[in-house]
């Protein structure tokens, strides 16, 4: 006999109150996409796809020349600075995660991971100020001359050097995403079953052999997910980047030259935007940034979910 399920008024009412709160979140996200799409519509209407691949961002209003908006320099800057950040932060983050999860003595693990987490708690603008006063001068005086002397034949490292540059932005972004990559990679490594490790050790593998052959391959998709999550973070970082990247509207090959990112152009120019089309162009960049981070984070989450499914099902290659 199935007992009759009866829902007293206060019960269903309470459920509905909670559901309304949930509905509010769904509405906010919907509203966010809708508002940005509507506000930026005139820009896409006027410039079409040229807004995305056009390299000319010239908002000044002259009588003889209408303003043009092409977001390519910012898209380029966002991609290059964030990839540079990944190149620096991924080895460091993975190394830290491996050290914390596989190598470090147990009493060190909690304090060290707390310190690394603290790196994530520092606000972006504080990174920016530190970068402005210490990191940029340091890189300009010590690291960049060395790199451009040794690797200067590659266009990416060609002189002349400027302190406020794509390179500085990449370095500061790397420090900022390091804790995220470390935390997710650690979770992934922790999900690798111990039988994997024991099997490798039993075959007389060294610790590193074990990590390389039995632990990392098992967690590969999760680790790629961790990297992508870090990338998603780097794409949207604003203040610290704005304060060190130099804010130039032109694409330069050399990393030691000033650049601009999508996030920083919004933060920097919104106060100067004096006429509607200019404002709408900045909102359109916001919409683009949203789309990009949505895709990157979605892929990251898929990879991490796949990883956790594999480890829960106990099946592996």
């Amino acid at each position: 006999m199935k007992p009759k399920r009866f829902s007293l008024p206060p019960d269903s009412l309470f459920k509905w109150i909670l559901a309304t709160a949930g509905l509010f979140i769904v509405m906010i996200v919907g509203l966010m996409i809708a508002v940005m799409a509507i506000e930026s519509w005139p820009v896409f209407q006027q410039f079409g796809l040229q807004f995305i691949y056009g390299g000319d961002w010239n908002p000044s209003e002259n009588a003889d020349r209408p303003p043009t908006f092409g977001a390519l320099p910012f898209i380029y800057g966002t991609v290059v600075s964030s990839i540079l950040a990944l190149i620096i932060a991924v080895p460091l983050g993975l190394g830290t995660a491996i050290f914390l999860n596989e190598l470090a003595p147990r009493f060190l693990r909690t304090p060290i991971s707390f310190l690394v987490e603290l790196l994530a708690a520092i606000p972006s603008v504080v990174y920016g100020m530190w970068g402005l006063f210490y990191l940029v001068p340091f890189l300009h005086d010590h690291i960049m001359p060395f790199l451009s002397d040794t690797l200067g034949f590659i266009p990416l490292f060609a002189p002349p050097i400027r302190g406020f540059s794509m390179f500085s932005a990449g370095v500061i972004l790397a420090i900022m995403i390091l804790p995220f990559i470390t935390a997710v990679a650690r979770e992934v490594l922790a999900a690798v079953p111990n039988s994997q490790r024991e099997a490798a050790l039993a075959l007389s593998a060294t610790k590193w052999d074990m990590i390389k052959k039995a632990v990392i391959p098992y967690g590969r998709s999760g680790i790629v997910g961790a990297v992508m999550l870090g990338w998603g973070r780097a794409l949207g970082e604003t203040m610290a980047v704005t304060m060190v990247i130099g804010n130039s509207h032109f694409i330069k090959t050399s990393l030691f030259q000033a650049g601009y990112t999508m996030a920083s152009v919004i933060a920097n120019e919104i106060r100067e935007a004096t006429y509607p089309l200019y404002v709408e162009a900045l909102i359109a960049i916001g919409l683009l940034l949203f789309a990009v981070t949505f895709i990157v984070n979605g892929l990251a989450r898929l990879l991490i979910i796949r990883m956790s499914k594999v480890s829960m099902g106990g099946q592996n290659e």
Partner: protein
Amino acid sequence: MSSPRFKRVRGSRYWVNHIMHALCMLATLAGISSLFLILGFLVIQGVGAFNWDLFTQPESSGLGISNGIIGTIELVALASLLGVPIGVMSGLFLSEYGRRGRFGNILRFFTDILNSTPSIVVGVFGFAFIVVNTHHFSALAGAFTLMVLMIPIITRSTEEIALLVPNSLREAALALGVRQWKVILFIVMKTARAGIITGILLSVARVAGETAPLVLTALGNLWPNRSLTEPIAALPLEIYNFATGPDPKLWSQAWAACLILVLFVTLTSLLARLSTRRSTLRK
């Protein structure tokens, strides 16, 4: 066959092992040393700038940052006013009613989207939604933006912690004839209280340091804010304006503001950790 003889591993495998070991250690050291470099400079530069005026004089006098401190408190309090109840309620919905089922999954998906949206994009939303329509940068727009940033953090942490409450507790109460809404309020929420508070504290700490969305919405103000429909100052905005400006006197005020902000954020996350440790759930 004779009994196996164990020889120590030598050769390339041996050296590679040690080199990689050292490299991993170096990587960890690099992260931690950058933390200490940042904190070190912050303390050295910031402590020297602490004085009475800093906390009591507004920006307009050129001596202090009191309007920013008040502004940040005001903004975060306003954001929490709606953000905390909505976050906690939708978190409870996810754990109590929405474990599976279509709406639960949709809600979880949207919360995740919001959680991973860069704060500048949320700022653009606040700008396009409120500032463009009211033609004013305002404290309300700033608080709205911070609220949007806050909600998904609280929702997911509340859900996670409420899922840790054992089902036997819920069932025991239900079996005694307690209605479900009372079970959620007095059993689930009470058991998970420490964890829920942790989530709220973490979201406050995160939101208090946000700058980019405030540049687009709250704008900043040299004087203490009089009305919610006017621009308002905030600590992170002051740091940004002072640091990028030309005045060395303001630089040292900005360092002090950085130190205050970082102290607040670290103390809050420490507090959050302590309260979770004391919780009955995490034992």
